């Protein structure tokens, strides 16, 4: 690699400082196009590893539950995430997180919301020190409710993210 001229370095620094202060004045966010730097990109899919497939074991961990129209992982749900993080630290198995919603949204929005819930749990696992490359996500929206009865209790049960362990 060529050595950089000190003057050039100084100029670049000046420019960087100017740009930064400009951006700070315009808005407080740090994204490339203005507002948000998203989470860790998803890893490539693994051949044959699908949440509902035969090589994924489901139900090994408790699902994370969510509030109405919400995708944040509440502090009361965090122990579930920590349990999964511990298990992943002592195992080489990767996981798939599947997000689900209740039936009270429109269908396509619910597919997005389910995915956002799965990604929120993934982010929580990454914050617990798990490599994001080990975690896939999928959304089923309002499909496959655990309780199709309707009513508050059923809806609350259906707003969830489930863990599948890839064998």
């Amino acid at each position, binding site marked *: 690699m060529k050595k950089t001229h000190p003057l050039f370095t100084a100029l670049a620094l000046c420019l960087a400082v100017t740009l930064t202060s400009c951006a700070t004045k315009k808005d407080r966010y740090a994204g*490339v196009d*203005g507002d948000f730097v*998203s989470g860790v990109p*998803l890893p490539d899919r693994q051949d044959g590893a699908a949440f509902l497939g035969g090589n994924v074991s489901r139900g090994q961990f408790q699902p994370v539950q969510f509030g109405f129209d919400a995708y944040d992982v509440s502090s009361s749900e965090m122990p579930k995430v920590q349990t999964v993080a511990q298990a992943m630290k002592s195992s080489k198995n990767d996981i798939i997180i599947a997000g689900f919603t209740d039936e009270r949204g429109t269908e396509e*929005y619910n*597919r*997005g919301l389910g995915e956002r819930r799965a990604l929120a749990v993934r982010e929580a696992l990454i914050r617990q020190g798990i490599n994001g490359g080990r975690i896939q*996500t*999928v*959304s089923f929206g309002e499909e496959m409710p655990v309780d199709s009865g309707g009513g508050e209790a059923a809806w609350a049960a259906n707003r969830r993210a489930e863990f599948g362990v890839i064998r």
Partner: protein
Amino acid sequence: MTIRAIVILLVTVVLCPPAFAEDSSVITVRKDNRISITITPLGGSSGGAVTQTLQNDLDLSGWFQTVSDARASFTIGGTAEGGSLQGRVTDSRGSVVLSKKYSGDDRSTAHQFADDIVETLTGHKGIATTKIAFVATGSGAKEIYLADYDGKNSRRLTSDRAISVAPSLGPGARYLAYTGYQSGYPDVYLIDISSGARQRVIDAPGTNSGAAISPDGGQIALTMSKDGNPELYVTGLRGGGARRLTRTSGVESSPTWSPDGRELIYSSDNGGSPQLYRIGAGGGSGRLIPTGHNYCTDPCWSPDGKKLAFTVRSGGFSIAIMDIGGGGARIVASGQNPVWGRDSRHIIFSSGSNLILLDVPTGRTTTIVSGLGKATEPTWSF
């Protein structure tokens, strides 16, 4: 006062009568502005079948009122036989305003004739030759169906027994894009309607859904989560060159294209509950569209570019319509997932287990799909 000034004063008084004079002389007559027509049963061996479809098409179009022939402004007739239809429209003086030959099956020739009648007499595009697609559970799983705009002639396109949802018909119903779960993940598939050839076009990691084929048929806008959050992307029709449009921490979904393909309107919950935003197809920042409603999803941009239909939630789900240029949204029906017809006059939406056709100016509704299990998520070709 000069003569010139007097003339100007006189002209002003004559041309601009005081407003109250006009108001006080208004006689309220509920005038039906539909065009009066009469349909003479068509001749030929297929005459009966074609006449029936034609009557239904012209009735559903909303533009016409069928009257006795003496009072009709236009008379519709012709002959249908052996896969061909010779159609004719004459005005009240007997002059021919439309005379054309069509070939195809009885329904198809009737639909073509109906659209030509609408266009000739009103200057607007008809909907009779358009197609719809939707999701229905009649076979026991969510599968994609294709039908004529009136719900007839329906056939099941998929039989995967996976979850098949979110269909989008491209222009002329040449292609249909939809979300299929047969790989275990939501991927976007593209079906060539005439050949039946199907190809998986978008299978990025995570969730790929809500595909909307652009008005020129060359691009797909959709939600993808491959970069770690559900965001809007635009890709080629076969999935190549994904270009990211949004960057938020929320959920972007259900993009709809402007008629010129330069902009998109979509739903985003980045501000809390889902609201509608407008963005350039090349990117930029999404601008909030104020609707006065707290939960707005499934926007659909009318083909004339002027109106927006969408779903609002307030207790149950309702269909709202508003002018793109601004102004309040008005609720026109209860139901969800409205889509515009190419006449920018009708919408189709789901309600209960059925699909409903609504003529927006008159408020008239017609159930077009029922008995196929639960029918949802309609899409309507231009």
